[in-house]
């Protein structure tokens, strides 16, 4: 097991995509690097991503995907209404193609340049073995180049001397240890598990009306230590949100029930009324926002019936869930999963032989639910959703004999900002001056987005920002170190 060294050139705080990309880049340039990870396992949330955004990559070129860097830049800036930092966005987008090549050179294998939603450019570079493979590959490369990787070793604060970074303080099993370093790269993955900050910056009650997915122990360490070192704040309230049903320890991620409840059939609020064009469910941010309007209830419901179950068994999905379950995927386990949830007394999944009974179980006024379904079925019959103008392809009536309801919640994949950086990923103080030696990237850094995540024009951007910001921070830090 690695001992903690007294000094190094660069201290990388966090072993996700950002930290590892920075560490390997720094090591390639001849710097001595230590990666500190507070968890026992490496990679954090980066283990989850299945693909990453890039434009003008060799893979895209080979597939006649002609979405350009200029288009991606314009779309990203338009989406944020120019709230995003344009130089940062431009740099990340321009670097995204070369980053795919760099990852391939490290040993990461990409299988496809594609997309998992309609009407979106093919920016999603699918990874063989998903984020876990990126983490494993980059850790192996880093170690081969002499990087020290220390799991279970949290950094607690940054040290400065004469305004410059001078090192980090590490919690070594309860003992404070100083490690001298001229460069610190802060990449701790945001603050998705910090109840107090989530309330303060987003207004949500964590675990009540907003559920974190793929985030563990994200208490905002990086933001705190950078702010304590004088960093300015940017982008703190942006989160990557969507809608999932059912949520709970008893349901596996991507289980058949979750996929059924994600289909663009009938969705209602806790009062039994429709609240959106269910087809926005193809894109995370819109459906997340629509769901979040019902914060005070904390949940909505997806309602379906036997005819819809049959459709999902015979014709498969309309809306794919992740890359693993594309449209057409058949939900063969769905009846068994519904039955098990009912047998286990779940409060997330409900079944009934009548709408009235279903309404009673989910505590909705039966007349309201009846009226909603009648109106919805009428729209289905006439082929026009008078209320929310949903595409007629997704208008399937609910006729029974059995009806189902699944409770849905707003979930999010991470916080997307906090530390103000420039396009070189140098951390800025409150007067916009660079704090020499301090870099930040990934979920810890702000400026890549406006108030929400531009899923439709740039799928895979969060992981791409992590990888590219890490690489760019590494390149900048090498120059700073004179290497």
């Amino acid at each position, binding site marked *: 097991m690695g001992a903690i060294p007294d000094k190094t050139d660069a201290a990388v705080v966090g072993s996700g995509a950002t930290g590892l990309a920075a560490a390997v880049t720094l090591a390639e340039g001849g710097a001595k690097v230590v990666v500190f990870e507070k*968890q026992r*396992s490496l990679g954090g949330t980066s283990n989850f991503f299945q693909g990453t955004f890039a434009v003008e990559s060799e893979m895209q070129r080979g597939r006649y995907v002609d979405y350009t860097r200029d288009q991606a830049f314009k779309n990203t800036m338009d989406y944020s209404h120019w709230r995003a930092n344009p130089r940062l966005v431009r740099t990340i987008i321009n670097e995204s193609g070369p980053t795919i090549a760099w990852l391939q050179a490290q040993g990461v294998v990409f299988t496809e340049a594609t997309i998992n939603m309609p009407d979106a450019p093919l920016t999603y570079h699918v990874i063989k073995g998903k984020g876990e493979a990126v983490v494993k590959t980059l850790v192996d490369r880093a170690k081969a180049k002499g990087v020290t990787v220390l799991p279970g070793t949290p950094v607690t604060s940054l040290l400065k001397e004469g305004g410059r970074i001078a090192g980090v303080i590490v919690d070594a099993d309860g003992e404070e240890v100083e490690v001298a370093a001229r460069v610190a790269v802060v990449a701790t993955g945001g603050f998705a598990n910090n109840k107090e900050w989530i309330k303060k910056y987003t207004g949500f009650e964590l675990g009540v009306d907003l559920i*974190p997915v*793929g985030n563990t122990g994200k208490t905002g360490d990086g933001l705190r230590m950078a702010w304590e070192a004088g960093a300015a704040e940017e982008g703190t309230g942006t989160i990557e949100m969507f809608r999932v049903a059912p*949520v709970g*320890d*008893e349901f596996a991620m991507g289980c058949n029930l979750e996929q059924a409840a994600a289909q663009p059939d009938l969705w209602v609020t806790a009062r039994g009324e429709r609240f959106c064009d269910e087809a926005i469910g193809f894109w995370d941010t819109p459906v997340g926002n629509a769901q979040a309007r019902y914060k005070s209830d904390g949940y909505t419901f997806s309602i379906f019936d036997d005819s819809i179950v049959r459709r999902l068994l015979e014709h498969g999905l309309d809306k794919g869930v992740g890359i693993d379950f594309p449209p057409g995927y058949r939900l063969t386990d769905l009846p068994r*999963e519904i039955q098990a949830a009912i047998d286990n*007394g779940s409060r997330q999944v409900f079944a009934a032989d009548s709408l009235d009974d279903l309404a009673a179980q989910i505590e909705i006024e039966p007349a309201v639910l009846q009226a909603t379904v009648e109106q919805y079925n009428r729209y289905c019959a006439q082929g026009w959703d008078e209320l929310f103008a949903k595409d007629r392809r997704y208008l399937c009536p609910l006729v029974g004999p059995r009806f189902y309801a699944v409770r849905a919640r707003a979930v999010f994949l991470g916080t997307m900002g906090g530390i103000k950086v420039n396009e070189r990923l140098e951390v800025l103080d409150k007067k916009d001056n660079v704090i020499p030696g301090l870099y930040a990237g990934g979920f810890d850094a702000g400026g890549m987005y406006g108030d929400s995540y531009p899923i439709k024009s740039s799928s895979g951007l969060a992981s791409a920002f992590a990888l590219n910001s890490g690489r760019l921070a590494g390149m900048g830090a090498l120059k700073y170190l004179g290497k």
Partner: protein
Amino acid sequence: MDEPLAALTIDGRDVEARPGAGVLQTALEAGIYIPHLCDHPDLPPYGVCRLCVVEIDGVAGLPASCVTPVVAGMVVRTRSERISAARRLAMELLLAGHQADCGTCQKYLNCELQSLKQYLGVEELRIKRHAKLLPLNSSNPLFVHDPNKCVLCGRCVRACWDLRGVGILYYRKRGDEFYIDTAQGTSLAEAGCRFCGACVEVCPTGAMQDKEGLIKGDNRKAGLVPCKSTCPAEIDVPRYVRFIREGDYPAATAVIREKVPFPHVLGYVCDRPCEAECRRREINEPISIRELKRFAASHDEGGLWRERAAPKDPTGKRVAVIGSGPAGLTAAYYLRLQGHEVTVFESLPAAGGMLRYGIPGYRLPRAVVDREIREIEEAGVVIETGVRIESLDALFEQGHDGVVVAVGAHQGQKLRIPGAGSRGTLVSTDFLREVNLGKDAAVGRRVVVLGGGNVAFDCARAARRLGAEEVFVACLECREEMPAADDEIRQGEEEGIIIRPSRTSTRILTEDGRVAGVEFLDVNACYFDEDGFPQIEAVEGSTHLVEADTVIFAIGQRPDIPDGFDLAKTDRGLIELDPLTFSSSREGVFAAGDAVTGTASVIKAIASGRRAAIAMDRYLGGNGRIDRKLAPQAEPQGRLGSESGFAALGRAADTCSPPEERVRSFCEVVRSMDQGAAEYESSRCLQCDLRLKIKTVDFWGSY
């Protein structure tokens, strides 16, 4: 006799090992990583997961390295295409029966299965997962069991049987699905569980977990032993409770003394924050930790702790401590042990601060205070009583190299209401000081105490003992939110104290300049606003009167810090300290106790004294390490054995002398537990610290 080591090669490296040791452990100890799941360093090897397979020259197939003993001359290879393929297949089989719920699983990033999946590069798309859809069991206290995440590695079963000797977990079957449960599917309590948590600790997945929110704070190890981590002085509670159970009371006292010089005092008056966090509270009732401490400290025959408590060689440095309360004396004691020359200055006639002049004798016998202060003096601390210090400069001029200010918060306050200055009104601190000095503190027949904290009850119960016939305690807080300790309130009521919660006093009524009663308004709610100011919502028209001839204000105390100290103060009038160095605004001056924190508890004052001693010692050139190992370093017995009815064992009740008897004197109220009760109560401890002895498996990233 040590056996000669056997030489073998692993991946071409020469390695030595004890013959008979497992190949897996040998490789891991040599820093060569072999993936493994069912094996655990504290459990007998099992060989079922097939992840640790290797190639060995002359051995057919791919043996599991965990169950293969080392033989001299062995040639082992841990990596090859064949090995990788076998490991990936084994991993796919494990994952096929494991619910993929990493995204919301609390175990994520501490999960061995996830780390192994990452290491082996298993492509999940290839796996046809089989959902077990078994119910999640959260009906037991402390632990949650999710059989859908179980990979049947058997670690929990081996921990329960082989490590702990409890033996209540079994492999069971429902339909086609195997899972782990108690023999009859009963609750853990009914099965005779000891709630040691070993099964949770060794579980490599999220199948057995601690209930969410039970492990508080960032530091998991601290969170697992909350009695110790909650204690302001971090007294190692499970360790001394264990010594008590074993009948070794001097060793138990020595454990307590590793952190505090007042074990017996704390045994009487500690506000025991540890008991509020005791994990046994989740099962039935917390361990009676304070009473066990009192029992141990009063049975410290021989004083084992003294053997290792001699002061270090003299450093030639001199420290002055101002104030001889628990904070000051704690700082003085530890600084003395670090080799400094320490003089404590006390303005009152005897040492002890609030231990002597605040807390009444029926709660804390004076002999106990005297004895523990004498120990501090015997260590070489000089206490000068009857000396009030007005200037720190004078102390430095006398040749002191540093000063610890621990003057406490002795200045009581009166409410600013009409009549507060009339005859018959008293202030808590003055009143208690008079009582404790043995002076003739006169109270009338009907006494109203204003305030709802422990000091209010000290005043009220003292007043009863001085002959008051009717004593009221009136406070702003509602009954449930009164700050006084539950046992104080209960014992006070037994003694006839009448509690009037949720009311605010608006004036003191007088007759001829003497107190005649108190006028109150009922209170709907009281709270602190965003700026920290108290807000009171009174009920209109609820004015009423309580007749009284004596009113005692017990509404909080302030420190009296002479201007001559020239120290920066907070807006609450407390001494301001640097949060990192614990230094005051003057070089060489540190501070501790109520003068820094505001009125707090004895244990907080002691903890604060410890911090001041550490900071001062560092300032004087020492290393600040004031902790000493005073008690024997015995390894605890990890085999608990099963015990039916263990979960139901109720807390030993305190025994008090009868109320009508105790209000006639200042004799102690709560009787010490006897040996049988101490044995019983200590045997209820869950021994949460045993879990920390279980080795942690390092993931691949650590190699």
